[in-house]
């Protein structure tokens, strides 16, 4: 039976902030565009962003300060030309999304309210209570929908059609009935989100399985800076669900078992509002040294009781609700328990500022673009500042959409053939029919435990080597799996199996890149090399997977600029 081929000018994979923003640009420019997403667009994880979105819009702030904070926060690994673009376009982007309907909180004189966030010289995070991502996602989806963008929701993008330096579409199947389709297009954008789901304790949605990254990597294309995984300081103890940095931004204090405000020993000036990597390590260190709290002594307290009921209800209502649901603790009355949680992916699919995906250090791929958390521009370098991620997704999503509009007429459509779907069909067929003994849920648990234990906020060559061995062992076990569900209707077990395959592949990129980076920078902290080594490692990792599944490493220069590389203290 032959597979239907649908032809478009542009296909966007993923319907979060980046995907919807790009699709809207393409649609408004009269291009035939469709968004393919494995969820309904409004379920995308952008909607879970809580605390805010940065833009230097107040009189006390400046774009240059925003740039400086971002570059310093990145531990100088960010490309400064990209950071400049991000910070300069931020105020306009915020005004634009507000015009489209975003419901920001207001100051008494009717301007967008802003709050302090970690690593920022000025209150810069524009917020909508503690559900900023929700209003942004709703707004951009609504306006893309209003513009007439076609959404293929609950469709799973299974493969990229890539040959000879050119992308010409994707292969996808309908999760509802397994109907497979080739979307043949002049250009494809990946906006598939992050990869922290490979850790046991993480703040991510179930959907954040990094599919886009592994799909790209399996074509032998590079992934950049994969070792940089951000551990957010405040996940709810036990399950990692996020408690926004807004809790600290509004004045939350971190306390250990002695009731000591321990951040004074780690970041005497910025205290709780040091950058995330610094605060996360401080929290983990407190529990390592026996000053943790909670049943397993692996958490610390965050105390916002001094803010009082009114401010908490006005600015942090969702956070309060989460702590009540998951911990049974009311932060109006008592401190709550938090610990570091795998949160954000600084690394990803390498792109230039225009959003073109890199084939290697010097060339880009025709007809292929990426934006948002799945991409690495790099504006976050080794550590992202809070409230810069939704900004990146919305802003680059939009501008990469504009790039696509500009370039699309110069791209010739390469007609798809049935053979283009072979890899995806073989993968599905193998997973459905393989009659082994291993179970996906168990293997996934082993991977997540291994990544948290060995490739977490603290790493050494020894732990990372353990992780490499384990991932390779899990790959062999994965070849021996069996799924029970053989049906074609919402086969979520099959989907979890495909996703687990992706998690295995990109996890190997994380650990292989981490073991080779013999220094500590931003979120990548090597206990056996505990200082930054600019001489050898002020450069981006570019890793590729060969046909046997082994990782080969290369490096790419960082684009430096006016913000001089200096030691980083808070």
């Amino acid at each position: 039976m032959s597979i239907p081929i649908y032809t478009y000018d542009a296909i966007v994979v993923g319907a979060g902030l980046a995907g919807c923003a790009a699709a809207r640009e393409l649609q408004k420019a009269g291009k035939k565009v469709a968004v393919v997403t494995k969820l309904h667009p409004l379920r995308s994880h952008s909607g879970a962003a809580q605390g805010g979105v940065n833009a230097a819009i107040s009189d006390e702030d400046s774009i240059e300060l925003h740039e400086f904070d971002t570059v310093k926060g990145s531990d100088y690994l960010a490309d400064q030309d990209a950071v400049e673009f991000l910070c300069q376009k931020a105020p306009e982007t915020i005004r634009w999304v507000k015009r489209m309907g975003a419901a920001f909180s207001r100051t008494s004189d009717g301007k967008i309210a802003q709050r302090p966030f970690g690593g920022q010289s000025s209150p810069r995070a524009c917020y909508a209570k503690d559900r900023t991502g929700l209003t942004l996602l709703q707004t951009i989806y609504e306006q893309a929908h209003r513009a007439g963008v076609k959404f293929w929701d609950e469709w799973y993008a299974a493969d990229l059609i890539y040959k000879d330096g050119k992308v010409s579409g994707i292969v996808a199947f309908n999760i509802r009935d397994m109907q497979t389709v080739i979307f043949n297009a002049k250009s494809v954008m990946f906006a598939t989100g992050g990869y922290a789901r490979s850790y046991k304790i993480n703040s991510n949605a179930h959907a954040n399985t990094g599919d886009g990254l592994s799909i790209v990597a399996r074509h032998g294309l590079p992934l950049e800076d994969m070792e940089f995984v951000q551990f957010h300081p405040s996940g709810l103890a036990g399950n990692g669900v996020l408690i926004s940095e807004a809790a600290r931004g509004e004045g939350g204090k971190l306390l250990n078992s002695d009731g000591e405000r321990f951040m004074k020993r780690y970041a005497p000036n910025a205290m709780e509002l040091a950058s995330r990597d610094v605060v996360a390590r401080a929290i983990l260190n407190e529990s390592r040294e026996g000053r943790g709290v909670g049943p397993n002594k692996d958490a610390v307290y965050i105390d916002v009781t001094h803010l009082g009921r009114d401010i908490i209800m006005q600015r942090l209502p969702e956070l309060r609700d989460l702590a009540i649901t998951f911990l049974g603790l009311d932060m109006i009355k008592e401190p709550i328990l938090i610990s570091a949680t795998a949160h954000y992916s600084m690394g990803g699919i390498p792109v230039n500022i225009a959003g073109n995906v890199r084939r290697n250090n010097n060339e880009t791929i025709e007809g292929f673009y990426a934006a948002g958390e799945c991409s690495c521009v790099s504006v976050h370098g080794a550590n992202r500042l809070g409230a810069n991620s939704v900004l990146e997704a919305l802003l680059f999503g939009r501008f990469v959409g504009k790039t696509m509009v500009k370039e699309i007429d110069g791209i010739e459509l390469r007609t798809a053939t049935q053979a283009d779907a072979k890899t995806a069909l073989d993968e599905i067929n193998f997973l459905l029919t393989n009659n082994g003994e291993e179970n996906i849920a168990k293997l996934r648990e082993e991977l997540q435990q291994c990544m948290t234990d060995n490739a977490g906020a603290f790493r050494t060559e020894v732990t990372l080597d353990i992780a490499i061995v384990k991932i390779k062992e899990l790959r062999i076990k994965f070849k021996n799996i069996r799924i029970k569900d053989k049906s074609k209707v919402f086969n979520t077990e099959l989907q979890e199996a495909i996703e687990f395959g992706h998690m295995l592949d990109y996890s190997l990129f994380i650990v292989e890149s981490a073991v080779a980076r013999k220094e500590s920078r931003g979120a990548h902290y090597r206990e056996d090399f505990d200082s930054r080594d600019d001489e050898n490692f002020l450069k981006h990792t570019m890793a590729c997977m060969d046909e046997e599944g082994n990782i080969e490493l290369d490096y790419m220069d960082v684009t430096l600029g006016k913000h001089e590389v200096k030691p980083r203290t808070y």
Partner: protein
Amino acid sequence: MSTNKITTQKVNFKVFRFNADEDYLPYYEDYYMDVTSGEVVLDILNRIKWDHDGSFSYRRSCRHGICGACAIKVNGRSTLACKESMTDMIELFGNKLTIEPLSIKRVVKDMIIDKGDFWEKHDAIHPYLISDVQEHPEHEHIVTPTEAEELLEADLCIQCGACHYACPVTEINESFLGPAAFAKAYRFEADVRDQSHDERLQELHSEEQGIWDCVKCFECAEVCPKDVNPIDKITKLHQMLFHEGVATSNVATRHAVGFKNSIAKHGLLDEGNLVLYSEGPAIIKHIPVALQMFKKGKIIMPWNMPKSDKLDKIKKLVKSSSTAKF
């Protein structure tokens, strides 16, 4: 993961199972599990899938009550699985819990339903801010906090569908847009930046969409996991329709006005007269019911209609709050 004392209880889950691809009829599967305090309903769904039966299917993503994917029913009550604590469920319903999809007649597989009707109705209210979007604005528009607060948290709706499939009117009346769609409509009607306020309001008033068919049972407010309180938004839209003179005289609006007239006159509800006022000459079709009501003493003759002893106060309140023009 409660930090209070951790307790464990044995619970029997009766779980609705159906696969449109394989099953002729749905059935219920029994699972017995130890449930730890601090678990939420989604943890149970995950454990069924991961520990017992990989084919069990449900929608889920964010796992902390913001994406709206995992709404289901527990013992017939709509809930968002990732935000519903098992301890509360056991306290409310005991140790036997029935897990079902939001709407059994729309099931595709296990907990997964076809939500086509929900999204169609969502789309029907033009669910986006209608304004000329300036693509590169140089200045910020001022919106005062008071204006911003007019949304009354309607923008917090996550489109989970819990209220839509709990609403008794949605269940029997296909054209009723449902509480979620009306809450969304209110979200834009209350936004000072929206430029299609009048057009959307006119459309909402049309009888086919049924904004007047809400029976005010409060089920939507009861089940909403985000406290959006959809019925409050429906009432606000009713008030907006009167206030802005959009409401025209029809049986539904006259029902509202007749209600007010009765309260203004007596301080109490005169049921017989309310029907007469709402229906006009069409009241003739209600004669058999009226006779039965009369026999049971439910219809009071005008000369016997009692008055509230606080009538003066009530009259003042009605006068100050009513905007009806007929």
